[in-house]
């Protein structure tokens, strides 16, 4: 057991180190922070932003229903960050295995006393950690803005929202890692992952149009629905289970796909 954990940590550290050594990763981070900051300002302070809306309501004398700006802001902003991540996550996951295949380092991993599961888990933890460093500065913006709110924002809502974002990212990265294990072309992996996420994103409206018990079941697979629940502060154990299932599924498929690679013609 200790050996396996040691292996996971070794893979994790290597993976993380490769992100911080890559100028490309800094570029992605820069763009992500720029857009995050832009949306942050637009939603809160923009001409159609929440503060402007409240001001208009005050002028018109509307007081009912009361509007909780901090809460509103958090769920809208996290919704936007979620959508933004949709574009960033495939880029983060595309190289996880495709690069190893291209460089031939997969042969090193596959002939070392490390299980495919340990490699996949280490890689996933690495890329999720990198994603968390991406959202850290954004959490600083939030903390500054929301610390001024009265009444104060419920810490539970804050926590659930960001937990939701990280779970969403981990689910997508896990699936993206599987897609990356299927090819040695990183760009192809990114596009396929993006398509897959899009499908899982829009599955909710599709499910609603189908209706019935099948549509209902399909709707539960939707990432969007569960993410929306979490960022609104609704803790549904079902949502957590769905995200965790996606993460485990991605890990499982990755391990299987790497195992199957050996049996393919090469």
């Amino acid at each position, binding site marked *: 057991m200790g*050996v396996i954990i*040691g*292996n996971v*940590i*070794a*893979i994790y*550290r*290597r993976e993380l*180190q*490769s992100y911080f*050594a*890559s100028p490309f990763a800094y570029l992605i981070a820069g763009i992500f922070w720029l857009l995050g900051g832009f949306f942050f300002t637009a939603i809160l302070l923009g001409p159609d932003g929440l503060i402007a809306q409240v001001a208009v309501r005050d002028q018109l004398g509307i007081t009912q229903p009361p509007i909780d700006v901090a809460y509103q802001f958090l769920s809208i902003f996290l919704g936007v960050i979620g959508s933004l991540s949709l574009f960033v996550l495939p880029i983060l996951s595309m190289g996880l295995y495709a690069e190893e295949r291209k*460089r*031939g*380092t*997969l*042969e*090193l*991993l*596959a*002939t*070392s*006393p*490390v*299980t495919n599961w340990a490699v996949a888990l280490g890689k996933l933890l690495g890329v999720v950690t990198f994603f968390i460093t991406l959202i850290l500065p954004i959490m600083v913006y939030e903390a500054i803005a929301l610390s001024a709110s009265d009444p104060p924002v419920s810490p539970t809502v804050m926590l659930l929202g960001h937990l939701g974002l990280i779970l969403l990212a981990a689910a997508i990265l896990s699936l993206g890692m599987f897609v990356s294990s299927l090819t040695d072309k990183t760009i192809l992996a990114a596009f396929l992952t993006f398509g897959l996420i899009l499908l899982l994103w829009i599955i909710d409206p599709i499910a609603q149009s189908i209706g019935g018990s099948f549509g209902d079941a399909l709707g539960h697979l939707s990432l969007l629905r569960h993410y929306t629940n979490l960022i609104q502060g609704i803790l549904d154990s079902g949502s957590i289970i769905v995200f965790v299932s996606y993460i485990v599924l991605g890990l499982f498929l990755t391990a299987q796909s790497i195992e199957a690679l*050996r*049996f393919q*013609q*090469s």
Partner: protein
Amino acid sequence: MIEVEQLSKLYGAIPAIQDVSFAVEPGEILGFLGPNGAGKTTTMRILSGYLPATSGTARIAGFDVHEQSMAVRKHIGYLPETPPLYPDMTVEGFLYFVARIKGVPAGDRANRIQSALKRCNLLEKQNVLIRKLSKGFRQRVGIAQAIVHDPPAIILDEPTVGLDPRQIIEVRNLIKSLAGDHTIILSTHILPEVTMTCSRIAIINQGKVVATNTPAELTAQLAGKSGYELEVDGSFEVVRSPLQNLPGVETVQTAPLPDSTNHHYIIQIESAPGVDPGRDIAATVVGAGLSLWEMRRTRVSLEDVFLKLTTEEKAVESSDLPDNANSLKTTEPSGGEAA
């Protein structure tokens, strides 16, 4: 240490290797020699546990490479055809990573890495990014990652390919220095490589092992095909049948000397193993009244053995093979000619 029995691998219906069997004793260096596409890499990959064999078994240190893959992986160091390197890591950082995943205990890592760096002459490069290393250094890092965990068996797939002559010599010396403590199997298509580094050779062609022996014995096996080459002046037909009837002479061939103006001929004689008809040949030629300008022994080099074993008659016609592929028609310039 390494036992391979009846190993076969099919890609679809096409066999990459067929019934490959050989064994490597502890401390030995076995050269796995064959032309490109003969199935060397496939065999190396099966031994490392990277590919499963279609049939047959391979055991390293007593463990089956497929059934007990994890145990085998702990006992081998493997350098694939392209060294598996992370360009964004430093040499030392990469070796630390490999040491960790190969299960080197934390307390031994620093020592093991230092000794691998030292052995591969990488001490001055230990803090350099792999991306910035030249091909020769990368190859050395590839070998360093194969020995960092001090495995009993080392598998090297074409360790000197793409290196310049000086680097090749360094890498060969490095491999030789590893023998004894480690059992090594290395694949190559370069003949002098095995004669210089290996204690035993297995020659593979079209997926089959065609010979296994020490370099010396392998040459000796075919040394029966040695003989003489003569340059004579005069009518060759006079001596043809007397030469053919000499004891120990198997074949007699002749060719006019290129750009010869005065009836100079080259006579090539293959002799039977264990018989040296040299004296009789000379006596016969001179006795028949021919002028003997040159006479020398022709020995079969390992290169000839290799080509004989791996070249089919029809393939000889292809122009990229040397002239002496299947006969002894060497066209060496003789005495007076200058190119």
